[in-house]
């Protein structure tokens, strides 16, 4: 297992820049997720790491080894494709043995390692089956066993769960995480699903239009999004376009005036953002709470089980969504459409972009 380093890596297809000056470092043994909407360049980046696509610019290193110009068969990466790509004419065991065979591992030893890898994914009893005799989840696990059996320097997974149904997805995700930490595999997991990335990764690389938007732990990404894109893409966020006035307050397009958060970007900021779960609604109050709030009128209430989603409208008509936990601690939510409230939030919860 190695640390994977990308320095100023770009990929151009004619006029289209699919991956644009990406620099990042995946630490040894780390589980990293590439997260971004479809078409943002996640697969292309992964393929460049595997060597299936050559970078137009930049350097890729496995540990201290520069692999930028190496063909895939000299890189020693393990790749699980979106569609699994199992060899249809080989049994499960033969599929898993393929990488060892290419490395000229002696037969008896190879066989033992194949069975060990299959046991890790709980498929040792199906070693003699053909891929088409397996379910989707089982095929997925064969693909995983096949990619890790030869101890690659990095394990690359391209949306490995997208073809599975929701229940299976959680199960495989947890298995994957357990396996990854047991074996200490340096892993890059590509997904467009924020829940998947948040729950499984040590660190998330958020991508958009070929560029890295932010790299950080799930907590950092969610609580301190670096850009408006990240704030919108991960979780839901209330956004107010506007500008910073001379008095040091943020004035929205509709004319509301908010106190400035203590940290976060300020110069030239054009968006004020606050997450729905940070908002408190106080019935019958006036003013703006402790300086971070705005008077509003309740316009809609949606019960969603663990939480209640309340839509309020500010004086200028801008909608604001608040999430209230239905845990009884806030007191049962007793709001009705038409109620006048003050929507407020902790000083540290407001974000500026």
């Amino acid at each position, binding site marked *: 297992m190695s640390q994977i380093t990308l320095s100023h890596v770009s990929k151009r297809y004619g006029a289209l820049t699919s991956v644009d000056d990406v620099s990042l470092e995946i630490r040894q043994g780390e589980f990293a997720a590439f997260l971004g909407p479809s078409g943002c360049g996640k697969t292309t980046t992964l393929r460049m790491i*595997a060597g299936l696509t050559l970078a137009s610019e930049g350097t890729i290193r496995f540990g201290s080894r520069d692999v930028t110009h190496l063909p895939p068969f000299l890189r020693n*990466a393990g790749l699980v494709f979106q569609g699994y790509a199992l060899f249809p*004419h080989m049994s499960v065991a033969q599929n898993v043995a*393929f990488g060892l065979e290419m490395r000229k591992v002696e037969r008896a030893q190879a066989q033992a390692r194949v069975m060990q890898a299959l046991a890790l994914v709980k498929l040792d009893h199906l070693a003699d089956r053909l891929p088409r005799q397996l379910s989707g989840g089982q095929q997925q696990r064969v693909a995983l066993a096949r990619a890790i059996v030869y101890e690659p320097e990095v394990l690359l997974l391209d949306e490995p769960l997208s073809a599975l149904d929701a229940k299976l997805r959680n199960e495989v995700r947890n298995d994957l995480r357990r396996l990854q930490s047991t074996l200490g595999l340096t892993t890059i997991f590509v997904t467009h699903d924020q829940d998947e990335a948040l729950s499984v990764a040590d660190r998330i690389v958020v991508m958009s239009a070929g560029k890295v938007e932010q790299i950080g732990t799930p907590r950092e990404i969610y609580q301190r999004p670096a850009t408006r894109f990240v704030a919108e893409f991960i979780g839901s966020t209330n956004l107010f376009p506007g500008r910073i006035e001379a008095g040091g307050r943020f004035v929205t397009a509709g004319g509301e005036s908010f106190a400035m958060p203590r940290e976060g970007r300020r110069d030239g900021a054009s968006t004020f953002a606050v997450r729905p779960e940070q908002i408190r609604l106080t019935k019958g109050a006036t003013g703006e709470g402790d300086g971070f709030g705005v008077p509003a009128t309740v316009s809609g209430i949606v019960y969603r089980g663990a939480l209640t989603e309340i839509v309020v409208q500010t004086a200028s008509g801008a909608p604001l969504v608040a999430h209230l936990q239905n845990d009884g601690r806030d007191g049962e939510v007793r709001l009705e459409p038409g109620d006048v409230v003050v929507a407020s939030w902790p000083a540290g919860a407001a974000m500026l972009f």
Partner: protein
Amino acid sequence: MRPAFLSPQRSFKPAMTAGCAAAFAMVLAPLVAIIWVSFFDNKIISFPPKGYTLAWYAAAWDMPRFRDGFVTSLELGAVATLVSLLVGVPASLVLARGRFRGREVVQSLLMAPLIVPGIVAGAAFYMLLIEFEVLTGIQIATTFTGLAIAHSLIALPWTIRLVTASLLGVDSQLAEAALTMGARPLTVFRRVTWPVIRPGVVAGALFSFVISFVDLEKSLFLVGPGTTTLPIVIVNYLEWSVDPTIAAVATVQILLIAAGLVVTNRYFRLTRAF
């Protein structure tokens, strides 16, 4: 049990069976008739036969033109098959996998021989070869080379069609998966790509051979002394005499092709290639 009106297959079944039987009869009747006639002990074909004999087979074999035609057709079939595989297999791999400008155009051009009427293509090719001869003084028309080129062109679309079909529905990332696991390109072909396309290649080879072996129209202008194919020998013979010799020749041809199909089918199910 579901009510009968919910299972339409059931009510169709007798009609389906009858339809299939009729179709089979239509396909098989001429073949059966030819094979039957080839054993008639009559000089002029007439029913019922006076008796049965194997003499026509001996007679056909004794006529050099049939023997030469047979050998020429075998050789042509072999060359056409070889060339269509050498060109068609790589072309199919690129066509099925590659993303490049003009892919559709190349594909259509390679399939074109299928849609141009044989006699037109044959005439056009003949004229091309004559022009070539006028310009360069090199004679290709009415030589084996000319026939071989024409027959390779006849066979090529079949190979491409069948090999391309065998690649459809197969994960296009198989080769890439093998590469990342450490296989070099040649190993990838030998261990992964080849086993996957093999049924298509075998079917393509078989069809190339058969299509070349039975071709009449495209060869009509191109044959010359010493390079006449069996179907043309048969047509020429029929102009002068209609006796069971021709039926014997046809029977041999039918059995040869049928044997080819049966043997091929033993190694893999031909239906998989379609």
